[in-house]
Structures are given as structure tokens and as C-alpha cells.
């Protein structure tokens, strides 16, 4: 029996992963705060660890956690950072 699918059956092509850095030394890491409770505490600790390993950091905050990051936010992360860390959930 043939049925009409409720799904968008387009095949998605997975984005290739970026090359992993060998060391954090000298890298610039963007820390994305999604604006959810206590995400800043998590990122504070991550930042401390990154700085201790020779990375520099920059903090960027999404307007609201429940919506996708604005293109401007993504562009700023891409412009500023070699790497990005996102703090999710509570």
C-alpha cells in the first residue's frame, strides 16, 4: 500500500566536523551563554579552566534560551573564536 508521508523526506547531509585542535594554548574560545539559569556559573568554571590552559575567551549571550541563536550571534562566534562552548540547560 502506498501512503502519503507526513514527514519531510529530504535527506540531510551532515556537516563535517571541524578539525580538532591539538592544544588549547593560544586558541580563542567563544563561550555562548544561552541565557538560562545558572548557565553563567557553568561557563565561569569552563572559562577558568580554559584560561589556565592558555586559551583566551570571549562571552556571548543569546537573547533567550528557547529560540535559535540569531545569525548575528553565530557570526560573532565564528569571527571571534577558534572554538566555541555552549552552556545548556539549568
Amino acid at each position, binding site marked *: *500500500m*502506498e*501512503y*502519503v*508521508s*507526513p*514527514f*519531510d523526506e*529530504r535527506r540531510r547531509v551532515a556537516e563535517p566536523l571541524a578539525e580538532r585542535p591539538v592544544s588549547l594554548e593560544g586558541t580563542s574560545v567563544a563561550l555562548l551563554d544561552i541565557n*538560562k539559569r545558572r548557565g553563567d556559573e557553568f561557563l565561569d568554571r569552563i572559562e577558568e579552566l580554559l584560561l589556565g590552559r592558555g586559551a583566551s575567551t570571549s562571552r556571548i549571550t543569546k537573547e*533567550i*534560551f*528557547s*529560540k*535559535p541563536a540569531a545569525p548575528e550571534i553565530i557570526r560573532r562566534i565564528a569571527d571571534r573564536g577558534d572554538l566555541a562552548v555552549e552552556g545548556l540547560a539549568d
Partner: protein
Amino acid sequence: MSLTAPEFSLPSTAGAPLALTDLHADGPALLLFVAEECPTSTLALRRLSRAGVRVVAVFEDPLDVAARVARRTGFDGLVLSEPAPYDVSRAYSLISLPTAVLVDRAGHETGRVVGWDAEALQSLLSVPVTDEPPLRKPGCAAKNTYDPETLRALDGAGFDELEEMFERGWTDGLPVIPPTGERVQAMLAGHDGDELLGEMAPALARVTLERVAACAVLAGCRPEYFPVVVAAVQAVLEPSFNVGGQAVTTQPCGQIVIVNGPVRDAIGLNGSSGALGPGWRANMTIGRALRLVISLTGGGFPGRLDRSTLGNPGKIGLCFAEDEEVSPWEPLHVSRGYDASQSVVTVFGADAPLSVSDHRSTEPLELAQVLGEAAGATWSPNWWPLGGTSLFAICPEHARSFHEWGWDKERVRSEMFAAVRRPAGTLRWGETTPLVQRASDDSLVDKWDRPEDIALVVAGGEAGRYSAVFGPCLGMDTQPISKEVPWST
């Protein structure tokens, strides 16, 4: 007594076909029958890979699919592919996947475990398997039991298209109507199925009229309901509704569809006794169709990308009419700027309804306060102000009382807003808001930011003084959205 395991020779990722005799020549082999779309199968592949036993995965899938799943799950044993019509599965009398069959060096089956059962596998294999939960999980139907091609080859014996919908995952857990081409065309009633309504998160799926029609068929809608479903889908696709956030949140929120205007009578939509359900086909299926668009087409399927902690029964679908004829007040769609003669759908992102009984109030402020205090308990008792909308379904008796006391809808809203406030000091425990944390003990905190955050709709039976309030969907920055029903039936 052990049985001789049925012989087979199947394509393998090792390059050449492998026979059962190749597999047990060096010692016992555990045949693990699995399938790609079965989550219990992938669980078994992941867990048994780490158990240190010799496992041969026999997939009821093509070899390339089998290899991909093996890679994805970290399965490092031999991988075999059994094509339709699944003769090997039938020879092994498989009903459910995964099924693990232990074959000894002599080619005898010495035991089997159906589904995921860590304790039974440990006992069968005499090695520790895992103590990581879940220790038990039921399996999925083996393809030889339902595969349509196979069953057609067997003269269609046992083919059940309703069961097939479950196997495809085209369901919310209840039986659905299979969306055949004929049914979908009837639903579209000549409208262009390729028309794009928008993209829906989290799948970022293209929501076409045809896919919405497929969901409407699945939900059990009659074709005359379809324009109401379309309006509801158009509403949730508005960016300010944030359906993507609602679809994946751990919150219980669902999408509540309220219908105003002449279409209610045209399609038999109930706004009277039992309006919130169950019992009326239009109510039940329109709400369900919207939810199927969100969960199937949009990808917000419970337990997958929908991470709702508890869910709520309203997420099966919740649609009702405002009883404009009984209401003493202006209908919702008129309050939102439409003409009374227009048929309009308004969608709210909201929690399950909380019933509020009041058979005793003798003056309007008392009743407004009872209803408002009930709303005060939604989301979390000390979360003031709410920061979202409280949607009230006001029953006809309550609405009539307000009317007889001379209160219109605006008055009810403004008085309720003013009546429900508490000293910050009484709210400063458990989950509370930054505003309460900052405020002095005696500062009065409102339950809402503004009276407009109180939405009132009249619905329910003539008898009984039971209204209801729907908790909000917070953190989503969601707004109620109204759309005119795009065509008449």
C-alpha cells in the same frame, strides 16, 4: 533439549557471505537479531559491544544501513544483513527484536533472550552485561511479522495497515487512519498539496499542505475540518509563537486551539458540555492533527526531540470552540480584532487545565479572586509575576454570574489582576522570581505583569460551576496567535 539452529548464509560487512557454521566453528556465537529503526535494538548493540562477548549482529536491513548503525552504536562484532522476505528470521521464529540466540560450537541453540533484558542476558552468557539502566526494555516487532512486501508475497496473510502505521512511527501512540493517496486528496479538496506553509523546528521540516493533510487523515479528521487544521498550523508557524521551543522543552506545554465564528457550527465543534473532551470528533481530531504536524512533520516527537519531563494529556491534542451563543461577552476573536462573522483559530501554548470549582461566591470580586488564586498556583506556587498568559475557560454559570453582577470581560480581567497579589515575603521560598528576591517583605507582587495576560474564553456545559485555567508555557516568549480559517467548507 537443545535444538539445531537453522543454517543460513548471509551477506556480511566482512566482504563475503557468512554461514552459521562459520560463526560457531571457533566457539559459541551470540546471534543478535536487530533492526535499524528499533531503539531497543540499538540499545542492545551498544550495551553488548561493551560486554566482552562474541556477538554477531543480524540486521533485518540492507547491508549499508546495517554497517552505518553498527558504526553509530560502536558495535564492533560481525555484521550480517538479512534481506526481505526475512526467511532466516522466520526460520528462527522471531517475533520481536532484538532477539539474542546463543549457538554453541555444535550448532545447537542453547538459549535465547527476547527484547533487552540485562539479567537474562547475563544468565545466558555467564558474563556481566551491564548494570546501567534500563535493565529491561521491550523490543519491536520483527519485520517478518509485518513487512508489507513480505506479507504480500505470502498472499497478504496477516497484513494489517493499522499496525503498519505503528511500525512506521506515524502515530502519537493511538491508532491512526492510514493516509492513503485517496484520503489525502479528499482532505486537500483540490488545494495544492505542494503549497508551503513554512518550516517547522526542530526538524526544520518543510510543512506543505500535503503533509498537513496527511496528519489530518492520520488524526481522523473529516475533510471539512481541514481548513481549521491549516489555520492552526499557520498560527503555530508564526515565529512569535515559538513552536520549536515548545516542541522540545522539558515543560509539559501543549498547543491549545480555540475556534470562533461560523465554522464551529459548520463542522460540529463543541464548546458546550465536555468542551475540553473527550467525545466530539472535530474537537479531538483537529487538536490531534496539529499535534501530529508538530511531532511528526516538525520532529518534536515525545521521548526523542520532545524532552517533556511528564508531558500532559492535552498534548494528544486540545481543541474547543468558544460558546459564543451562551457567552454574555464579546468573543475571543472579536477581542483580538476580527469581525464576529469571521471564522478564526487562536492557538495558545499552555499547560494542562486546572479545574476551579466555585459554587459559593456571592459577589463578583469573590469569584474573580477564586479563579485568580487558582491561576496563582500554576507554573510554580511562588513564581510571581507569572511572566506569561493565563488562559481561563470560564463556564457559562460563572460567566452569567459576572454578567448579572454587571461585570464585562474587561472588568473581570482588571479586577482579577488587582485582586491577586501577595507580599513578597510570603513568596520567598522554593522556586521564585528575581523580582520577589529583590523586593522588600511587604511589597505586594502581582500575579501577572498586566491584565492583558489574563485571557477569558467561555466554554462548558450549562450546568455546573467549574471553570478551568491553563498554566502558561514560560521561557518561550510565546504569544497567542490568531488566524482566520483560510477557506470555508
